[in-house]
């Protein structure tokens, strides 16, 4: 095999190949349909354009999906992230609302830290339920999913808390280095998670738990601590996502913020090539997943398809990906490949005999 074809083979077989192709196709299709879709303009030193909007829109699902990827790697799931988003935003805004110095940057920082800290505690609670009490992840996190939204509403007293705090608002609608603030925050979070996971042994240990829990245990992996960390991280990132999501409007609508966002996060992770069965996870892929998700939502508008049909596209994607990942299908394909190989071998053998 020559070098270029070898390279091509490796590119095609890369986990990210198909997700990236899908993203590019979507973007190109939109670009052809609506010229100007791909153009980016500069105003007041800030970048504007559809693509920038997509990146901005992808920030929230990405923040959620980063934590979700870690949880899924252990073979678990975190359904509570949507509710945690609502709680952290409610806590932050309520704090600002009660503060006399809401326009001070320092107050805004405290508000953010408070919201994120509460989210961290909630994530740790999920981790406690899963690792110490040994409750199935699905059920354990569902409890917070149900109760969490109530807690958020309790904090806001059922009102849509609106407040003004320019520094806080910057988190959602400001710009930094010409890019929207949410994009910067998501990028920083991504880099931090990558460093924490890949510069330590955490990533490898998470994967070993997800691939073969018993073998990992016998190799000395303390799965309880590692798994707990994943849930705590998921909570923390969800808290951050809530603040980023709610900051532009400064309105904590506890009823609707983060609704169904857990499903979007799961979708991003799966689109990025991580199997829901746990094991190997791909943070880079998750970024692509988040971009695909947001792009689908945009493209639907560009093509004048009623935007309400997006769930339909999500459904098609989920079902297709699941069936493609399905162990049954893989086994069948493997069998066929095996059979083909043995047939080839038999043919070769029969050719050799006369010679």
């Amino acid at each position, binding site marked *: 095999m020559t070098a270029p074809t070898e390279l091509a083979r490796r590119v095609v077989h890369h986990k990210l190949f198909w997700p990236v192709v899908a993203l590019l196709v979507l973007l190109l299709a939109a670009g052809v349909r609506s010229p100007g879709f791909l153009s980016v303009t500069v105003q007041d030193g800030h970048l504007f354009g559809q693509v920038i909007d997509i990146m901005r829109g992808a920030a929230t699902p990405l923040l959620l999906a980063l934590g979700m990827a870690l949880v899924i790697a252990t073979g678990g799931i975190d359904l509570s992230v949507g509710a945690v988003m609502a709680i952290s935003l409610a806590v932050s805004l309520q704090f600002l609302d009660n503060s006399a110095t809401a326009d001070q940057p320092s107050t805004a920082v405290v508000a953010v830290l408070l919201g994120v800290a509460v989210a961290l505690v909630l994530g740790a609670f999920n981790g406690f339920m899963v690792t110490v009490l040994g409750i199935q992840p699905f059920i354990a996190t569902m*409890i917070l999913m149900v109760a969490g939204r109530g807690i958020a509403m*309790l904090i806001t007293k059922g009102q849509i808390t609106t407040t003004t705090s320019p520094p806080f608002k910057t988190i959602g609608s400001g710009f930094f280095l010409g890019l929207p603030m949410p994009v910067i925050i998501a990028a920083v979070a991504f880099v931090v998670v990558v460093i924490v996971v890949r510069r330590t042994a955490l990533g490898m240990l998470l994967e070993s738990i997800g691939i073969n829990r018993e073998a990992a245990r016998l190799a000395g992996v303390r799965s309880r601590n590692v798994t707990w960390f994943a849930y705590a991280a998921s909570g923390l990132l969800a808290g951050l996502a809530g603040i980023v999501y709610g900051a532009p409007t400064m309105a904590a609508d506890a009823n609707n913020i983060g609704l169904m966002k857990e499903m979007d996060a799961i979708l991003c992770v799966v689109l990025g090539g991580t199997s829901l069965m746990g094991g190997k996870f791909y943070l880079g892929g998750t970024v692509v997943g988040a971009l695909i998700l947001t792009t689908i939502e945009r493209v639907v508008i560009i093509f004048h398809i009623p935007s309400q049909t997006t769930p339909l596209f999500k459904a098609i994607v989920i079902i297709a990906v699941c*069936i493609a990942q399905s162990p049954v299908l893989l086994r069948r394909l493997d069998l066929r490949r095996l059979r083909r190989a043995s047939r080839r071998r038999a043919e070769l053998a029969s050719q050799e005999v006369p010679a």
Partner: protein
Amino acid sequence: MTTLTSPTSTTPRWRTALRRATDRRYMPVAGSVLTLVLMLVVGEMRYGGSSGFLTPRLVSNLLVDNSYLLVLAIGMTFVIITGGIDLSVGAVVALTGLVIATLLPMGLPLPVVLLVAVLIGSAMGLIIGVMVQVFDIQPFIASLGVMFLARGLANVVSVNSLAITDEGFASLAAWNVTFGEKANQFRLNAAMLVALVLLIVGFYLLHYTRFGRTVYGVGVGDAGNAIDLMGLRAGRTVLWVYVISGTCAGIAGILFALYTKSGYNLTGIGMELDAIAAVVIGGTILTGGGGYILGTAVGVMVYGLIQVLISREGLGEAWWTKIFIGAVLLVFVIVQRFLTARRR
């Protein structure tokens, strides 16, 4: 030869009865019944007044308000006992409601429309069942996919709230029989009747047929191995429970449409969680293998009563309901966890 162990037929009857009453299998359900009784007592003490808290009217209202939830929970009970989950039911309720609202003005006869609505539910369940059984996809994800599918289809049908003005449908919704007067008035309506009939059907199906017992056997968590070795069909059973759940969701969609006299694509968001919560509060083990249909009925009553109590308490706000339900769920799940842990 000495005989082996355990309470025998020679032990007094009361001891057998006592042992049965303290049987681990009944503990979660006993817990839910206890919760129900406790709530009724609290209600009686605080809001009893002259006419009392527990009146036929209260029971009637509970049933009327929660008949659709009861139907969903019955279907969900089957699924959860096999160790699965069905997240699609809320979306299916929205879809069937809209289909009814769209088909009736087209002049199709009411029975046909209702049948179509039910069959849509069955079809959604069948899709999940095939994904779970044939493709070995986790029920959570399979039903999540179908949830998006149903929600998307509902959005395609309409994104507006469609009022159902069909006369036949309206009269069906309005039909009721009342017994008694005032506080003692018991109102029986069509939705309630349907829910009660399904409760009986579900009860017999689960507890008095081989299919029902296989449902339990599948839920022990060995992928149906034991059941298969016993010569029963595990695979087929798994497929069927999702069809049952889907069908129940279709019927619940009709009941919800009767209740609201409209179809709307945003109804039923989170309704699957209500159903799951009611089932768990009703004593069904979420990891599969244990539960009772009548327990589910108790769970739905507890669920409804929580809302009643919270509104009577003046905590009319919806958040208390959610927090309270979350807390009850937490307690039940932890108790279940310890019960199942002791089993091992």
